[in-house]
């Protein structure tokens, strides 16, 4: 053997050996070696401190750990439950400081910029089937289509045009009634006229019965010597009750004021019209809505605007109120507080029908609860390495698989997020199921906008103050509307532009590195183009009004 090839072979073998060591070291750095590194930890943060929810999440976490261990990929799951009132400030500091957990409630509805910067878009991921649904009736179905709304709304950020979170439960709002107290009342001759108005289950679920019961117990009423309220209430209850009442009166009006008569409201369009002076709050349907709000609001406890939800829950669970309107996410806590002392039933909030002599003309029909879409909204934080993000997605798939989500529903008393043929929610939760067959809710007094909601809250006391409450309330709304519209439009316009900028990054990177034709054909283009056209129209109109700087 000649010496030259031998030396070269030795050198190459040395390089080969060194390469093996280097590749192994790099592999350990970037992707991990399960034999030598600690078991990865997956943390998820939420604000759901309701009774039984943390325990249910713990159960899911332990089951997930067992499933991962069984396939040789052990993981530890830690739950971080943060009280709601401090959650957002805690979440922001965690994200900005780079110490956020892998999964947390997304800021989909609160902060588009934070959502874009810190949460992973999930639109591609939800198009794939959930592998944990193998063997169930939803096997092979795209993950998004295992949720009731196909994630058309759930988890979708309409500004950014992508999905940023996964829902894990479904909620509706119901009137809870103390059956034992109602039974006692009906034994009393003063309440006898209400009995024929009750439904076949003996519940005041029709408008006339509901209102008759409310009016039969005026403020300060006592029953067997005990002060009794028809409706437990606080500011939170009022928001739901009053907005429902108002929107029943503006159902037909919605088709008049929408940019196109198809029942899809556009708040920004109305705000621009308001600034142009061709729309205002003082119209017959808005007056009728305010009048009904006043009528319903009078059944709430005196000073309800100063009360908080815990006060209302205490009124009801202590047996001092016949009914309470509340979101079903509170039902487990309420059940725990009642502790079996009295029986409770739930029904949908009744509203006047089209045949109502005074409040029927603006009504189209019962509301569809199609807006009660699966929620919960756990997002994947994009600060972490891809491997950790993928693990977070896998956990969310596990949580929302049919067997796990139904078990979670049974444990929490919350409706499951998943639905479809063969998916049965626990029988005791049937009265919470959203009733989809119905009509759109009418124009909202808050125009579905945070600034207009604040304006309404500031003025609401006027509605209940004196006999001319409706006039004073509408006048105050109109007086504050211009400044509110300017603030709201500037905020929405800025947020939307941020969304379009970040959307462009995805389109350009995808188009340059991959198949541009494929990237451009997505649903997000259909969505973005329409939104951009609306934004340009607004900017141009605001420029003409001198409310936006010109080019």
């Amino acid at each position, binding site marked *: 053997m000649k010496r030259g090839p031998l030396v070269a*072979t030795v050198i190459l073998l040395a390089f080969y050996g060194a390469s093996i060591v280097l590749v192994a070291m790099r592999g350990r750095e970037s992707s991990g070696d399960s034999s030598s590194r600690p078991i990865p930890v997956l943390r998820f943060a939420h604000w759901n401190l309701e009774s039984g929810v943390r325990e249910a999440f713990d159960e899911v976490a332990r089951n997930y750990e067992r499933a991962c261990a069984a396939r040789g990929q052990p993981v530890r799951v830690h739950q971080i439950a943060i009280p709601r009132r401090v959650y957002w400030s805690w979440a922001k500091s965690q994200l900005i400081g780079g110490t956020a957990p892998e999964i947390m409630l997304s800021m989909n509805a609160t902060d588009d910029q934070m959502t874009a910067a810190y949460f992973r878009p999930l639109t591609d991921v939800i198009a794939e089937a959930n592998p944990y649904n193998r063997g169930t009736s939803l096997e092979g179905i795209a993950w998004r289509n295992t949720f009731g709304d196909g994630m058309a709304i759930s988890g979708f950020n309409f500004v950014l045009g992508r999905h940023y979170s996964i829902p894990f439960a479904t909620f509706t709002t119901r009137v809870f009634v103390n059956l034992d107290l109602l039974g006692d009342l009906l034994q009393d001759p003063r309440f006898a006229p209400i009995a024929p108005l009750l439904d076949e289950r003996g519940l005041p679920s029709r408008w006339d019965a509901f209102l008759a019961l409310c009016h039969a117990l005026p403020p300060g009423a006592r029953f067997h010597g005990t002060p009794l309220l028809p409706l437990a209430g606080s500011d939170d209850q009022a928001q739901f009750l009053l907005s429902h009442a108002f929107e029943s009166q503006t159902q037909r009006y919605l088709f008049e004021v929408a940019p*196109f*008569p198809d029942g899809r409201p556009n708040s920004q369009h109305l705000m621009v019209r308001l600034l142009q002076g061709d729309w205002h709050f003082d119209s017959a349907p808005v007056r009728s809505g305010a009048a009904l709000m006043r009528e319903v609001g009078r059944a709430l406890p005196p000073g309800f605007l100063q009360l908080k939800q815990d006060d209302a829950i205490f009124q009801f669970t202590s047996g001092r109120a016949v009914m309470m309107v509340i979101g079903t996410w509170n039902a487990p806590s309420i059940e725990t507080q009642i502790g079996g002392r009295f029986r409770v039933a739930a029904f949908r909030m009744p509203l006047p029908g089209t045949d109502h002599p005074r409040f029927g003309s603006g009504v189209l029909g019962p509301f569809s609860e199609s807006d009660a879409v699966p929620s919960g909204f756990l997002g994947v934080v994009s600060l972490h390495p891809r491997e950790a993000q993928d693990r977070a997605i896998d956990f969310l798939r596990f949580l929302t698989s049919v067997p796990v989500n139904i078990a979670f529903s049974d444990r929490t008393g919350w409706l499951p997020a998943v639905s479809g043929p063969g998916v049965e929610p626990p029988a005791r939760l049937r009265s919470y199921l959203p009733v*989809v067959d119905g009509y759109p809710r009418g124009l909202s007094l808050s125009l579905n906008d945070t600034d207009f909601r604040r304006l309404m809250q500031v003025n609401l006391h006027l509605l209940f103050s004196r006999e001319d409450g409706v006039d004073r309330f509408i006048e105050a709304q109109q007086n504050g509307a211009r400044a509110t519209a300017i603030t709201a439009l500037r905020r929405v316009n800025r947020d939307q532009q941020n969304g379009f900028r970040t959307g462009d990054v995805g*389109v350009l990177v995808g*188009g340059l590195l991959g198949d541009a034709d494929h*990237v451009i054909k997505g649903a997000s283009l*259909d969505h973005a183009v329409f939104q951009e*056209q609306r934004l340009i129209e607004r900017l141009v109109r605001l420029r003409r009004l001198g409310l936006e700087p010109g080019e």
Partner: protein
Amino acid sequence: MLFRASIRLSAILAAALAARADPAASAWDALRRLDLRQAAAQAQATDDSPRSLLFRALVLANRQPKTDGDARAAIALCERTILSAPPRERAAAGYLKGRILQWHLQPNPLTEAVRVFEETHRRDPGEPFGELALLQSCVIRYASEPDPARLGDAIAADLPRIDTLRLEAVRRNALRAAGEALLSSGGDRRRALDLFERALAGGFESDEAQGDLLLRVAVLSSEFGRGTRAREAFLDFAGAFPRDARARWARDRAASER
């Protein structure tokens, strides 16, 4: 034989090592994830190829805190790219320049953005980003035109160009934008209906867009006495989107059409 095997093995391992350490790939990945801090850090190391220039332009335009200076520097990088890049990157650079003018600079210089989008489409009409540039030009011009007659003329002049678009998504959105603008400006609603019908023929991927277009067609068809088409479109909507809050209303409307 041992020698050859060693060479082959070494080459494979060296390639594996290089792939793991490819800074350009991880920089693009960081940008795709909007991890602009990491992308910005790696942008320093990239070369002056058209893609690298575009990468730097994207990072500059989007990094925080946002400044007009960064946006203008990003535009300058796009202009450098346009001078020397192959068609795909050149069209992307033109499109990005237009988008920076449209949404990054304040107050949004929309007229200038239209000029850039038109140039981009003229230069690279067959490129995906060239087609997107034409769409953006249409959207801005239509949404900015308050006069229905002038808007109608602009749409008529654009339709031959829109018909040549290769990407169906771009074409249908241009047709839809034209119809929407006619409605918003109080223009010819019958013409808007025709444009919506043409847009709908290709089908929209977004459920929201598809549903809204079906209702546009249904309501406008009813308005112009095309009862059969109105009924069909209302029922198509209710059938395709049974969970939409407007499904029952659409069924009612279908029943009332003769």
